[in-house]
């Protein structure tokens, strides 16, 4: 409100000559003003509320996604469960010097096959864990109707150890690091369900049950400290493993060793406890590199040409409309472009390569970069160019040596915003097959650009579709990483713009 406004208003307020009707009108108008103003504030408040709700819903779940539970166990590697001869045969077949007592064995083809099956599968190692539980914690499993129910409970308890750990035991046995017959101390990765259990599972699971149309029928802890949870879903009786027949941990005496952040070190996995963001982060990094290499030089040069050198005619008009339109074309269309032209026609077999994903993303980023760079170049005072021209520079010299450096902060911030957009884009990645299942992080220097990869957004999409509570935590954690990346990039762009624009 300007000063004059205020004067008039105050005058009206104190004026004694106001008729009643005028006063009513004025009051109504003032009410209207107030309502309108509060509506505006309410709109802003709503926007803020949405942001808070979104952030809350993400951050609340993310902590459990970042950390990982481990259990320390002493497992006797029972020679009765896994035959030493089988192991030796398998070792011989894969070319590792077998243990001394089995040195005489020469593998026959048939025997070797069955032996390798026994050694390779995880069943034997799980049995070892079960035997350990039976031996050490047998007292926790009393009161079952018969051996079968008891064995089932023990087996489910053993299922709290991740298959990954069982495989580690196998590999160490095969390589000779462990020997059959000895007792080893293993830092075991907790299986997904158990992991959630350790992280205050009860509250979390029940919430998920409610939200997923699961009707909780019964949750009980019986006399032996066994907690049982049964639920009803889609017309079927479903029991949830960690609760069904698993003794309370304090009865087992297992210790949760530590909660270690394993999220940044591991790649995709079907086991939620092993799933991490590393491969996806690598894929996103590689794609962003491709975007920088492709869209920045092309975009900046095109912007320079269109802004400074192109003649004004229908063709440049058409170019401008084309670029503006391209900036608003749905990203999924770029995905179709990648799938049909790059993968189907030009380079068959390049499905899911980061270089393809990056190319598609740079198509998408290109108009953003061009528009931002044009704006930045156009904002440079014409005197820069004129001065250079007056000193005898050619037009290209004037533009490239004087205008472009002055426009650099604006261009840089535009490029970074474009990169942030590209980093968060999902649909085109799904179209070009960047949603692969990547078990290991690609080793640097082995052609990672040309190997199937995955990007952060598509990894999040894969996790988000899974109802497993731990996968949902991983989703939230992945989103936190993505948001950190995108928001810090945007902040950097804003910083560059404000910091350097002031100095101009």
């Amino acid at each position, binding site marked *: 409100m300007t000063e004059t406004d205020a004067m008039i208003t105050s005058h009206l307020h104190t004026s004694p000559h106001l008729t009643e009707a005028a006063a009513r009108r004025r009051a109504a108008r003032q009410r209207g003003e107030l309502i309108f103003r509060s509506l505006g504030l309410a709109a802003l408040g709503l926007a803020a509320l949405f942001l808070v709700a979104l952030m809350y819903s993400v951050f609340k779940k993310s902590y459990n996604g970042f950390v990982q539970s481990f259990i320390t166990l002493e497992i006797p590697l029972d020679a009765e469960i896994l035959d030493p001869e089988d192991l030796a045969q398998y070792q011989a077949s894969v070319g590792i010097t077998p243990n001394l007592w089995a040195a005489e064995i020469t593998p026959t083809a048939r025997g070797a096959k069955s032996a390798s099956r026994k050694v390779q599968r995880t069943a034997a190692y799980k049995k070892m864990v079960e035997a350990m539980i039976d031996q050490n914690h047998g007292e926790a499993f009393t009161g079952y109707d018969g051996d079968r129910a008891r064995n089932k409970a023990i087996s489910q308890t053993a299922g709290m150890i991740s298959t990954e750990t069982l495989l580690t035991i196998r590999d160490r046995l095969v390589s000779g690091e462990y020997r059959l017959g000895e007792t080893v101390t293993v830092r075991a990765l907790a299986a997904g369900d158990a992991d959630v259990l350790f992280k205050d599972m009860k509250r979390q699971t029940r919430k998920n049950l409610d939200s997923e149309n699961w009707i909780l029928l019964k949750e009980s802890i019986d006399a032996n400290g066994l907690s049982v949870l049964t639920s009803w879903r889609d017309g079927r009786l479903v029991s949830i493993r960690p609760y069904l027949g698993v003794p309370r941990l304090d009865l087992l005496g297992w210790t949760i060793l530590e909660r270690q952040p394993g999220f940044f070190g591991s790649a995709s996995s079907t086991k939620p406890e092993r799933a991490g963001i590393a491969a996806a982060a690598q894929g996103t990094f590689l794609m962003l590199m491709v975007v920088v290499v492709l869209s920045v030089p092309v975009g900046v040069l095109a912007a320079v040409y269109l802004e400074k050198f192109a003649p004004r005619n229908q063709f440049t008009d058409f*170019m401008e409309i084309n670029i503006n339109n391209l900036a608003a074309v749905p990203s999924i269309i770029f995905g179709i472009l990648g799938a049909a032209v790059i993968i189907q026609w030009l380079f068959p077999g390049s499905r899911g390569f980061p270089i393809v994903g990056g190319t598609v993303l740079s198509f998408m980023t290109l108009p953003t970069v061009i528009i931002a760079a044009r704006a930045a170049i156009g904002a440079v005072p014409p005197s820069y160019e004129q001065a250079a021209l007056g000193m005898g*520079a050619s037009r290209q010299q004037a533009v490239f040596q004087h205008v472009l450096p002055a426009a650099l902060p604006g261009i840089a911030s535009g490029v970074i915003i474009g990169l942030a957009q590209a980093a968060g884009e999902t649909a085109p990645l799904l179209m070009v097959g960047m949603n692969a299942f990547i078990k290991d992080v690609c080793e640097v220097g082995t052609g990672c650009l040309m190997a199937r990869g995955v990007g952060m957004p598509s990894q999040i999409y894969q996790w*988000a579709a899974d109802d497993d509570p731990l996968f949902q935590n991983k989703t939230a954690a992945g989103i936190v990483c993505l948001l950190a990346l995108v928001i810090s990039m945007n902040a950097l762009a804003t910083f560059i713009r404000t910091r350097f624009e002031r100095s101009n």
Partner: protein
Amino acid sequence: MNRTSSLSLQIAFFIIMILGLTLFFGAYALAIPAIAGYIWLAVAFGRRHLYGRELTLEDARSAKLNRFGLPSLPRFYGFLTLLWWLAPPILALLVYRSLGVPLLEGMMERETLALMGKTIDHDLLHQFARSMLTTLGPLGDGSVASLSAAQQEAHPGLQAYFDQQHATRRFFWLALVTAGIALWLSAPPQAPGTSGRVLAFALALVLIFVALVSGYGAASILVLLVMAVVLLSTTLPANFTRLLFMVAGLSVLVFLRDQTESGQGGTILSLIVLALSVLVMVNRGVRPRLDDPRFVLVASAALIVLLLTVLTWLGAYGWLFEQGRILLFEISRGELGLQIQLLDYAAAALRAGEVADDPALAAAAERVRDAQNLLRTGYLVTLAGGIVFGILGSMVFIRRGTLAQVRHEQAASLGMILTSAAAILVTVGIVIALLSNAELFFSKYPIEDFLFGLHWSKDAPIRDDQAGGFNLGAVPVFYGTLVVSLVALTVALPIGLMSAIYMAEYAGPRVRGVFKPILEILAGIPTIVYGVFALRSGIPFAKDFFSGLEWLLELRFLPAAFHLEYLALDVGAKSALVAGAVMGIMLIPFISSLSDDALKAVPRSLRDGSLALGGNKSETILRVLIPAALPGIMGGFLLATSRAVGETMIVVLAAGGQANLTIDIIDQMTTVTVQITELLIGDAEFDRANTLSVFGLGLVLFVSTLLLNLAAIQVVRRYRQRYS
């Protein structure tokens, strides 16, 4: 720092780099420093030509430089020399590779077949391929009907192949027309000769004759007739050069096409026509203008035709030879490939000193090894030749007095023009990708059934040959898209507009300092995050909300006798309403910033006028500012609609995949983008009607967003003009 020490620093850095790279990547990394050294050498060599010549006024004018504008900077000479040193070897290597590798492959194939006791009758193979191609007919009306039943039996994929051929063929015509227009536009306005019309008329007659003789068929005649009409109706002499230019260009294209399809006669005659046109053009001083952006259009069009031709060629001949192989040798590509690989291994083993047991194999492996050695040596020779040529060229053509800067800048502006064309190429790529595949789709599934059909079930378990069995009526899909977008806009428009108004008109610097970053963060959040939010928080919330609402509306809080049973506000696992609402949140900052721009563009005088007449702020905004800014706001609204229609991840996660044509917006619905994602995710093969429908949907999506964007761009443009 003096010059010597900086140089020694550079050398030290270079050596360290070489050592590091070699340690890390092995001996191949030595190529990098070698190339770097080569470039450095080229630049150093070029810089020796330091002395520029003084520019005359005429030179300066013709080069579009100012008169002072030619400093004898060494770097221009360095750059030019570098171009000379780099371009010939690279080009030579590319050409050598594209010629040599197929030759080697063919040789290995022959050896393999000989090893397997099968001799190749190349004539027979070619005959087969040609007989297959000619059944396509000049206008692309070939079909399996023209083949005998036995042949049809033997080649089950033939109809699909014909379909594909027809699709590419139509594109060829499209590209040809584009190229014609582009060539016409890009022709230089040269002064024409007086006898031009007569000559051109004669030329057209020749062309028609050529078309008749060449056997290329009715289509060529059509093009040539059109050209003749253009020619005869031309009264302006300047158009003659244009025509020549066009004819020459089109001849190149038709020539390229002819290479693939018709007999030798057409090829030779096209070449003659081409040579004639070029001759006339050169004679008259007609040259393409590289600095004209329109020329880029021509280059693009020609490139596309070239690409299509190559693709057709590869596709057609690859397929045909494959068929021929099966027919003549009873061996498939896979088997043959395996055998070839065995031969390759044998050659590699031979290289390592192991001779194969089978003497025939050993002999063949030896021949293959020799050929491979030859090919490898050839690379070195080609490289050396290219380098020598480049160095000689640079010595001959870059002399003291060369206008190095002019050349340099010409190269730079050509580069800039090409980069500007990249954006157009992207659009062209999208259009081609969508159109060509959509065409294939509509040939399998009628377009009217797709656009107006009411049933969508893409997963119908139907055999390939019963395309009609799919229910691909897309109306429910369009309807879902519309509903979700409408919900989103209903949420976003009032909130976005009001927040823009408040920020622009009411907020003090402190409020603005709080809310501006909030809006910016909302704008920067990736859509997948909104999608997960909708799925994991939005839908549970909506479930609670609507069950509470139901409880309230059905009077559940009263005794049971009063209960009503008319509502069914059950939120399932997915919901169009939730997806739309969350999409609305996503659009708030978008609408807000565009409305803000529109409001800011309203001239100060309008606002002051309203305030001076006694209007208060809200009245000024509602009755003056918003009506004045309405076009701008409308433009923003259209862009937001286009974004809502094309938004993918939110609807994929929260709106569901089931096509429901219902007014119950709480229920799940599906959108165009969801269907595209679901169909194209995973390793889709584009051969069945349901996977191909992706392109039908994509085309609809692209066209609708294109129209919305164009309308928005137009509205905003006109609005800007009004107030500036």
